[in-house]
């Protein structure tokens, strides 16, 4: 990993975004929800570095606070998906039989519905909120991890060390938890980096549609939603939130590529 400069730069960008999200109260020059009707849609200036929005809120402050919603919406759904996929993948891959059949048919069915459509449909039926959007994205990403987890278990259970553990009388639970579980995690972590990027775009998409973060709380997607109505008068409202999404997603994708190249022996 250290020998791959693009991946290291991407890691630095991701860490910087996390730092910005954590230090938002100290970094943001203004209250992200404070309106100023004397400064509506003001172009970038010395006071408001990235301009103001349709009700005079500081765009830079909203971008900084919005990083929290976007990063949380990237990490939490993937955490939900990983946490659910590990036991289900273990059950499916290790036990096989009808358990595997049922879990895999449901996974196939979920994979048959395009990711964003699942997220939109679920968010629509659950009701618009950031929490529901994260749950919807988590459920939508679950089949990707479940399939990967099951595939890894199928490979691992034929490894010699697993057969050795079985030969010395290890119980199924002990073999699954002590020998298979630790080794099935690396591919899931690599996939996580790429899926966090997809989840961030999905949250921005849902918030853009009004199904994610609700106003006045800031998120990059909801900022783009508002910006769409003022394209000709205040283009800066649309420019910066999109750039933020682009930068973090690009960094996560490059990091994902780097992790895969570093950890997958076929690329070494």
């Amino acid at each position, binding site marked *: 990993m250290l020998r791959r400069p693009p991946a290291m730069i991407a890691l630095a960008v991701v860490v910087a975004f996390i730092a910005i999200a954590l230090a938002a109260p100290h970094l943001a020059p203004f209250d992200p929800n404070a309106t100023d009707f004397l400064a509506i849609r003001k172009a970038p200036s010395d006071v408001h570095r990235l301009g103001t929005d349709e009700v005079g809120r500081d765009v830079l402050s909203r971008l900084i606070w919005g990083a929290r919603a976007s990063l949380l919406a990237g990490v939490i759904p993937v955490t939900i998906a990983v946490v659910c996929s590990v036991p289900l993948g273990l059950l499916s891959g290790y036990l096989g039989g009808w358990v595997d059949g049922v879990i895999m*048919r*449901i996974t*196939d*069915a*979920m994979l*048959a*519905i*395009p990711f*964003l*459509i*699942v997220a*939109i*449909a*679920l968010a*629509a*039926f*659950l*009701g618009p909120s950031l929490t529901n959007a994260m749950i919807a994205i988590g459920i939508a990403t679950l089949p990707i991890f479940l399939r990967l987890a099951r595939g890894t278990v199928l490979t691992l259970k034929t490894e010699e060390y697993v057969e050795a553990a079985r030969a010395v009388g290890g119980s199924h639970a002990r073999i699954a938890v002590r020998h298979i579980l630790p080794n099935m995690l690396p591919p899931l972590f690599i996939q996580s980096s790429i899926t966090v*990027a997809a989840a961030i*775009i999905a949250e*921005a*998409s849902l918030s*853009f*549609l*009004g*199904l994610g973060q609700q106003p006045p709380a800031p998120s990059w997607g909801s900022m*783009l939603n508002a*910006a*769409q109505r003022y*394209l*000709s008068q205040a*283009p800066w409202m*649309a*420019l910066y*939130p*999109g750039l933020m*999404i*682009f930068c973090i*997603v*690009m960094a996560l*994708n*490059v990091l994902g*590529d780097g992790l895969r190249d570093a950890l997958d022996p076929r690329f070494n």
Partner: protein
Amino acid sequence: MTLWLFVARRLAVLVPTLFVVSVLIFSLQQLLPGDAAIALAGEEQDAAVVAAIRAKYHLDRPLVVQYGLWIGNVLRGDFGQSLRNRIPVGELLLSKLPVTAELAVCSMLIALVIGVPAGIVSAARKGTPIDVTANLVALSGLSVPHFWLGIMLILLFAVRLGWLPASGYVPPWENLRLNLTTILLPSFVLGTGVAGVMMRHTRSAMLETLSADYVRTARAKSVPEWLVVTKHALRNALIPVITLGAIEFGRLLSGAVLTEQIFAIPGFGKLLVDGVFNRDYAVVQGVVLVSATLFVLLNLLADVLYFLANPRLRG
């Protein structure tokens, strides 16, 4: 294995998958908070309306019976009625499908024109600045939020330069020129994302074939490099790219939700979003079910194409 046996085997997997898809989509209704009949009634909270909806959608019957009645109707092409438009959902779906299909075809053409040549050049010039640039552009295409790219292109080409309309759609049979100008920007927005995927796959398939023994033999026989790339390597490298194209086409048919919303294109995606905001759940279920079915069928087509293109599978 014959083609028919291959298709029959795939269909045997496809039917249960679609069955589970239909169960999942039917189950969405159960996620509605509180009484589904009240939720379906929307703003109409009149007890008589709620009772009529409960009777119409058989919400007072057991879930299994409700599913049986619903899927029976769906199989006969009856997806229910749109609460908003008061017309059958099936009719709505049929009227929107050609619009989305045109958008998907145009996007795929743009993706192929950009992605495949970029992948070939990138592989043939591996490690050079051209390769690095092509990879960077492809990764950017994959990372950019398409709805934002759409907004930026509207800002540039419609608001600033005034070259193209910002939104709207004109059917090709009404005015072909206007149709092409309205479809160009959304197609480009969707096409760039697919082009990134195409480029990366073409490059990796080309790198694999360029290091194969038969390519080395061709080079040893002093075959010109352009002929080695285009005739010997490209033919085999394109096999996975063709199948990827079919899968991506399926994704485009159902994945244009936000692009259609931004450019106000009256296709499947806009129908879904409008259905969500109007709480028109029969429309939402209809769009998701048809999208999933199209996606599954195009995946089947991808498998068939792979089977036809790859003689080793035919034994």
